[in-house]
Each structure stands twice: as C-alpha cells, then as structure tokens.
C-alpha cells in the first residue's frame, strides 16, 4: 500500500469514526453530558445484531431494521430513568453515571456472550474492493460506511435546521429554562437527543463489528476514537465531526504505513496536537497557574 492509497483508506475509515462520534457530539451539544458509555452502547448494538444473526439467521444488514429502533428506545429510556436524575444532581454526576454504565454494559455482555471474540458477517461487499490501478484500491464496505455517515450527518443537520423538534433541540441546548417557558418539554427533548445518539452509536457499532472482530471490552477504545474525532472536528459542529473523523482516520492509516503498530498512536498524536493548538490559540488558554489578584 502506498501513501496516497493510505490517505484514501484513511478518509474512508473516517466515515466510521464520524458515525461513532455523532451521538457523542449530539449529547454533549444538547445536554453537556460527556457520555463515557457511548462506545459501550455502540458495542451493545453490535451484540444485539449478533444475537439476531445467530438465532434468527438473517443477514447483518437486515438485523439493523430491529436493532436501530430498539436503540432509539434504549436511549429514550436511559435518559428518562438514569441520566435525567443524574443531570439534576450536578455536572459531575452524569460523568460518573455513564462511567458506571460503561462497566455494567461490558460485564453484562461478558456474562451473556462470554469473553470470546466475535465478528459479524458483512456479506459479499465485505472483503471486496475496487482495484482502480496497481497502486489504488477502494474497499467497498468502507466506502459504504462513509456514505452512510454522510447521509446520517446530513439528515441530522436537516432535522436540526428544518423541523420543529430540531428547533426545540437547539433552543433547549441553548437555554432549557427559557425553552420550557415557550411550551417545550425539555426532558422529552433531552430523551429524544439521547435516543438519536444511541441509535447512531448502535449503527456505528454494527459497522465496526462487521469490519473487525469485537469482544465485550471493546467499548472504551471506540469511545476514545469517537472522542478524538469530536475534539479534532470541534464541538457542536456536525460537519466538523465528519472532518474530525476523516483527519483521525488519515492520521491512523498514514502512521500505519510507517509501521503497522503506529496505527493508533498516529491518531492520538494528531488529537493531542489539535488539542494543544486549540488551547494555545484561545487567549490565555494554556495558563496552568491561576493569575495573581492584579490580573
């Protein structure tokens, strides 16, 4: 694989990261919740699809039909039962709650599915790629994921800009108390946001599980990639999330070109560089010690 091809594959891989990051970005944007269980919820989606594929003997793509609405319900209920209460208790509590959820999900998955590594069948296009030239190949499945990511992000953008629930989401994100004074049920809006976030996570999780083997403890790694994509792309911007995912993907595949074991490291380094640059560019952002009283 040459460099240019590595970049191409990185861009395609970015689609998966963007899809994974969408829900994380949405929940932070609307409720200021950093959902540490996001990767684990993605994995939960993958396991639900696995269950259907194993027992109902349907294709993975078909399994998405019940898994995605199921994920919407899981997200809605999760918000109404657990996250809503923790939001009322202060800023740090949701972080702790989702951290606990991460551990609970991983252990439940281990209990029900064993710690074994599984994988999901990706059908005929799974391993197929288009040989453009002797140097270029285009893996169909990754291209499909990028396409789905663009459609999901575009759809979400349309929802936020053009619909009543979208306006209510943006209004509640800005000022939940005032939104309430206009008749918006802020708690229902929050639950809707979490439902969408968990559904996109499940979609990303199923795609991830079709690309590579997974086990009950793969959630946190996915969370880290999603988190990096969000930070690189900038918080609160959906297209920024796509860009962040692509930058992360390219950083990984290009580093892997140097040495395969640098795959993840390259992404982490770019994430770190962006983080430092961002903080440095903000006025006084890198100040570690508090300024004196004269400031």
């Amino acid at each position, binding site marked *: 694989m040459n460099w240019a091809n590595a970049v191409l594959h990185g861009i395609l891989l970015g689609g998966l990261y963007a899809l994974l990051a969408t829900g994380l970005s949405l929940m932070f944007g609307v409720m200021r919740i950093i959902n540490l269980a996001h990767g684990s919820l993605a994995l939960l989606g993958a396991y639900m699809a696995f269950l259907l594929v194993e027992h109902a003997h349907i294709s993975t793509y078909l399994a998405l039909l019940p898994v995605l609405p199921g994920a919407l319900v899981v997200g809605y209920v999760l918000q109404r039962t657990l996250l809503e209460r923790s939001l009322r208790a202060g800023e740090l509590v949701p972080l702790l709650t989702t951290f606990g959820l991460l551990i609970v999900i991983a252990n439940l998955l281990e209990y029900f599915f064993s710690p074994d590594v599984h994988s999901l069948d990706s059908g005929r296009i799974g391993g197929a790629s288009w040989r453009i030239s002797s140097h270029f190949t285009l893996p169909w499945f990754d291209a499909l994921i990028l396409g789905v990511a663009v459609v999901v992000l575009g759809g979400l953008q349309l929802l936020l800009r053009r619909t*009543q629930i979208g*306006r*209510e989401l*943006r*209004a509640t994100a*800005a*000022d939940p*108390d*005032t*939104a*309430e*004074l*206009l*008749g*918006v*049920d*802020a708690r229902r809006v929050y639950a809707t946001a979490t439902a969408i976030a968990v559904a996109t996570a499940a979609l990303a999780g199923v795609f991830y599980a079709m690309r590579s083997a997974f086990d009950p403890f793969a959630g946190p790694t996915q969370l880290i990639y999603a988190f990096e994509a969000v930070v690189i792309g900038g918080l609160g911007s959906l297209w920024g999330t796509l860009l962040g995912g692509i930058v992360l993907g390219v950083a990984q595949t290009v580093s892997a070109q140097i040495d395969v074991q640098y795959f993840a490291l390259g992404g982490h380094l770019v994430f770190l560089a962006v983080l430092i640059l961002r903080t440095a560019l903000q006025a006084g952002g890198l100040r570690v010690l508090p300024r004196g009283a004269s400031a």
Partner: protein
Amino acid sequence: MSLLEVRDLDARHGLLQAVRQVSLDVEAGETLALVGANGAGKTTLLRTIAGAHRPSAGRVVFDGRDVTRLSPHERVRLGIALVPEGRRLFPELTVEENLRVAAAAGRAGRWTVEEVLETFPLLAPLRRKVAKSLSGGEQQATAIARALLTNPRLLLLDEVSLGLAPIAVDGVYAALQPLFESDATIVLVEQDLGRALSVATRVVCMLEGRLVLTGAAAELSREQVTDAYFGLAKA
C-alpha cells in the same frame, strides 16, 4: 371566578424569602401593573406564577385549575406565558426560529408568525438574522412576539424596558399599546411608575415580598403609589 388566583404564596431563594404570603386575583381582560423597588419580589412572583420558580407554600390557580405542581411547559400549554427579564432569546437561532420554538406550546389562535411580524413591523426585515446580532429593542420585541405565539390567555411581562434606550422603550410600548387596549389579560412589572400607571387598569405595589397597595390605576395618585413603594404608607 378570576382567571388567575394566587393564594398565600411563599417563594424563597435559599434563606431569602422573596415572596411572603401573597394573595392576588387577576381578572380576565385586565392589565395589572406590578410595581415596587428592586428586590421587592416582583420577578420572583411572576416566575412562580409561570412555574419557573417553585413556591415553598401557597397555591396558584389558573382558570379554576390548581397549577402549583405543574412544570412551566405544562402551564404554557394551558395559556400562561412569561416574557422573562433580560429577554432570554436563543442567541444562535434566527428571529424566525426563535418565534417558531413557541409552536411547542401547541396553542393555535390569533397569533401566527405572520401576524406578529405585522404587529412588530421592525422584526419583518430581521427574520433571518441570528438573535444575538439584534439591538436591545429588537431583541425585546422578538421576546414579546415569541411569547405571544404561544397564544396565551395570561401574558406576564417582566421589565420589558430594562436595559433599553428610551427611544427603544417607546417603540416597545407603542407595539404593545394595541395589546393593552384589547381584551388580553396582562400582568406587567415596570420600574417606570408613570408608564405603569398609564397603561394599567389596576396597580399592585410590592414591598419586601408583600403586597402593600392595590387599586384601580385611575383612582390612585402618584403619591399614594410612591409612598407604598418606599414603605411610607400607614398600613
């Protein structure tokens, strides 16, 4: 039966008791001005009526229904709208989007987006601008228009002139004038006594959380109100 009945209402901010044993009736169709010094509890009273503040005791009854335990959005859906102090627009949303959020109330009626843009003509050319780019007067007009779009039966206006240039205040009141003259039920908090007396049918004065004076605007003298305002009246 009054449209709004407030009974023995207490409201606190931590240790501070902002509203003490307030009982108040608002009749359908009247414009009630709530006056009083800073910290007298006017804003807290309005916010408690709207449901944005939880009372520590007492009841709020709207159209015969006890709404004390209802959340703000449930009260909006029954027809109570508050224009909060400081306007509180959604800064990143356009004027039109700010207005359309009010559709969440699900109350159809006289006020539509087109109708409010006619009533507040200064907003028409601004509808695609983001709210944070507006001047104070424009923001206030948007905030009032937004509340009207919930088609309220009771409109609570909290210091609509706060922080505005005198000319902008004139603009806001000129736009509100038809509303005051209509059969709308309005409770407004206003620092400017002259303006409060000129638009209201009835005036209520608050002092340190209590109602100390109430009367028809036409029958009260400015001196009576200022005495109550500063706590000089013999109770």
